[in-house]
């Protein structure tokens, strides 16, 4: 091994560890007793492991409900939007209809509009039909999404039309073609988009902060932000809350990272 190579490894190794330090500290502080994380110099491994912070979260602060809210909402938004987006992506990829190009360009160019612009009227709309502080308040804005339609369309474009034609000749309806041919072939991109949507909904903060007003409806980020206000001096408890929020996301990522990373690469390819 030459020197250059060794230096390169040392640099990459050190920076990788440095990147992970916040997570390592978070995890270890979450197992410390009250006050143990507020010492100088900071300790990176608890002298004794305690679960009292997690106990507080679940027993006193009923975080189980919050966790389930996050899980349920992320799951529902993912399933519904996958269904809506894949149908629209199929239509844009394989059908010809009046105004297709214009419509598609309009959608693409409106991706530049920051979502914050829509939040005030959306809040008023949902409030007037009594949906603020319900699960629907989170699900409705997530029903469909332009980036998702775009990603699926790109993928379906590459599916040969001969498959669709053959099915047509055999008498398949359009919906059967979508269901039996397109969806199975598009599974890789559907998995990718599912991860994006799930993580996006799980991590989302501003809209749930606006749309959910009651403790029992909060998602994890909103509950955590709220908790931070009362527990600025309890790093151990806050770290346990952060672990609870982050661990599911890290698991999803580690298991499915191949799809996630491919999705980012695909999204960056202009036609």
């Amino acid at each position, binding site marked *: 091994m030459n020197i250059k190579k060794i230096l390169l490894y040392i640099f*990459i190794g050190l920076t990788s560890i440095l990147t*992970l330090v916040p997570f390592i500290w978070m995890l270890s502080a979450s197992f410390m007793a009250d006050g143990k994380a507020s010492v100088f110099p900071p300790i990176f491994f608890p002298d004794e492991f305690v679960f009292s912070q997690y106990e507080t979260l679940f027993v006193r602060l009923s975080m189980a409900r919050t966790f389930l809210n996050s899980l349920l909402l992320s799951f529902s938004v993912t399933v519904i939007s996958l269904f809506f987006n894949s149908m629209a992506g199929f239509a844009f990829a394989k059908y*010809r209809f009046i105004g297709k190009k214009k419509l598609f360009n309009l959608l693409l160019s409106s991706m530049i509009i920051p979502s*914050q612009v829509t939040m005030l009227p959306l809040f008023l709309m949902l409030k007037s039909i009594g949906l603020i502080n319900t699960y629907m308040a989170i699900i409705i*804005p997530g029903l469909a999404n332009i980036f998702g339609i775009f990603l699926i369309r790109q993928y379906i474009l590459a599916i040969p039309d001969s498959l669709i034609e053959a099915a047509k000749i055999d008498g398949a309806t359009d919906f059967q073609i979508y269901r039996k041919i397109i969806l199975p072939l598009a599974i890789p991109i559907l998995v990718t988009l599912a991860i994006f949507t799930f993580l996006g909904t799980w991590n989302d*903060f501003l809209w749930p902060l606006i749309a959910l007003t009651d403790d029992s409806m909060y998602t994890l980020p909103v509950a955590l932000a709220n908790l931070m206000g009362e527990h600025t001096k309890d790093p151990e408890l806050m770290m346990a809350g952060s672990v609870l929020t982050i661990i599911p996301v890290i698991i999803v990522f580690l298991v499915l990272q191949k799809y996630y990373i491919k999705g980012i690469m695909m999204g960056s390819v202009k036609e």
Partner: protein
Amino acid sequence: MVNWKRKMIKSAKNKFSTYSSSAAYIFLAPALSAIFVFFFIPVIAAFIISFTDFDIYALGDFSTVRWVGFSNYFKLFDDPLFWQALQNTFYFVIVTGPVSIAVSLTAALLLNSKLVKFKAIFRASYFMPVVTTLVAVAIVWRFIYHPKFGIMNYLLSLISISPIDWLGDPLWAMPAIMLMSVWKNFGYNMIIFIAGLQNIPEDLYEAADIEGASAWNQFRFITLPMLAPTTVFVSIITMIGYFQLFAEPYIMTQGGPLNKTLSIVQYMYQEGFRWWNMGYSAAIAFVLFFIIFVGTLIQFKLQKSDNT
């Protein structure tokens, strides 16, 4: 190859698509109506609201809303807090944007090097912050920046730098948020850069090697120009994302100290959803949109002039 594929798709499409455009509308209907009702209508409504005095009274009774023309926008122009938010956000975008991109590119070059093995592990650890929940990591960093017990000051004390009150000092609060944002986001662009690097034909480097070009010159005259389209894409999405800065200051500083970290979106949120000045808040949202729009145009223009 792509052209050939496209041609094939086109010729096949003609046959297939002639029968079935009504099915297309049925497939489009759910997604497009959701986007129309819950995205496009709100955008238009927000634009209209920004010309009214929609406030807390209007929430109870819509009939109290009055048309006020451009006065919300004029008011913004005279609002020192808005200018502060604007200045903070630009400061954040202008510093954090280029720094993140530089860090992303460096990481991508490292991981793309043929000398390195175990790439997947390093890539995963660089990438980890990207997937994690912003609110949770902002909380973690708030404790990392703790003036007395935080890891940051501990690490600095090892190289004998005296403790800094990161989030409490008006001078340091924004740089602290910037550092955390670079850490949180560089992995995303790194992936895009890796994809871009892998698209550069190997023989360009081989030819340069034969000519005896140095590593730096190869980077300067092959890698950078070949990556230009990727860099433009990355700059645009990074800029759009950074202009929407919100959760970091909301969690770490609440916009303080002395409003030195108050961001545009945070100000919009406060005006709209804390004080219910919705007309005013909508005007702020549109200024944000306008800034992002102009920023994107400028970057496209810059790229065009680079190419010619």
